[in-house]
């Protein structure tokens, strides 16, 4: 089974999904991520899905799950780079991402986290 790498950069965990997600991969990612956040004490998680072309409801729920999960460690989740087709699919499926923040690209996602951090200090 493929594992999605989690990178740490300036107190933010960066998850870049470049593969077709299987349900198993998603579950493993959630576990890994929970562990990494608690280890590093990161204040933010950025999930880059610009490489994802196909989503289903399971993956749609993953974002909400990861968001509530990281909220427990006081970290904010930002989903970046969602493609139009993916966004339309998620809306058609009637899924809302809960309290997940979104941004057009990685740069803006990091900017949002930076602003939030400055705001909370």
């Amino acid at each position, binding site marked *: 089974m493929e594992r999605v790498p989690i990178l740490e950069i300036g107190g933010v965990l960066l998850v870049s999904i470049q593969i077709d997600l299987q349900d198993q991969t998603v579950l493993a990612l959630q576990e890994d991520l929970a562990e990494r956040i608690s280890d590093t004490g990161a204040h933010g998680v950025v999930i880059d899905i610009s490489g994802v072309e196909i989503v289903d409801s399971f993956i749609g729920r993953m974002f909400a799950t990861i968001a509530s999960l990281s909220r427990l460690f006081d970290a904010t989740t930002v*989903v970046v780079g*969602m493609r139009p087709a993916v966004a339309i699919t*998620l*809306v058609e499926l009637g899924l*809302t991402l809960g309290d997940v923040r*979104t941004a*057009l690209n990685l740069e803006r996602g990091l900017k949002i986290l930076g602003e939030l951090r400055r705001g909370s200090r």
Partner: protein
Amino acid sequence: MVAEDGRRLAVVVREQKDVIVERWVRAAAESLRGRVTAAELDREFREVYAVLLPLVGNDGRRIDDERYIEIRSVLAEMSRTRARSGYTPSETASSVFALKRVVFELIGDDADAELFRELIDFSSLLDALGLVTFETFARAREEIITEQSEQLLELTTPVVKLWEGVLAVPLVGTLDSARTQVVMEKLLESLVETGAEHAIIDITGVLAVDTQVAQHLLKTAFAARLMGAECTISGIRPQIAQTIVALGIEFGDITTKASLADALRHALRREGVEVVAAAGKGR
């Protein structure tokens, strides 16, 4: 004489070709009231006449038959050109029917029973051919309509940049699912391309909104939000506002503004841009 049985008319129309075509052009030009030049008609009719000649003697009863393929395609072409230049189908068909009268007058009174029967066959052949032009005409019109509605779809959904980071789609006319889909996709694609964080859908020019259209607009706004952009809907007319409330459509936390100007001001404020009148000017 026996060998010429059933062929006498064919001989006449072949030998008198130039006279017939000339009179035919004159008769047709009259009904088209000079919108086509005589030279043009002459060229067109000569072409038709050439493929018609070998068919004289048939009564056109089975017009789908193989031997009619050539004349059908010639007539179809003629009818299509006419359709595009805005003639009525009757005008096109009467161009064909005009030939009947020309030939009848040429034969005149010296038609015996034999020739008379041939003339009847010829007449029904021309009737069938006239109907062919009619059919093609309708089909050509359909094609034009389809083409135009496609062009309209493209034309009426421009995504315009109002400011750095602010895109707008001014919608005009009637919204249906197909069009809203195009708008939705185009807008979202443009958000990715330009990296704009604000989108405004202006529906000032939209005359009617039903539940389905409202659903589509909401979906577009939600999809934009999923991608990390904010979508504002502006220009809701008073009647449409009433409809929306009466239908019980909830726009949730999607921002709606009265006019495009308000929506732009809102977007600029969110972008952190302040618009100030130059000193001494403005109100």
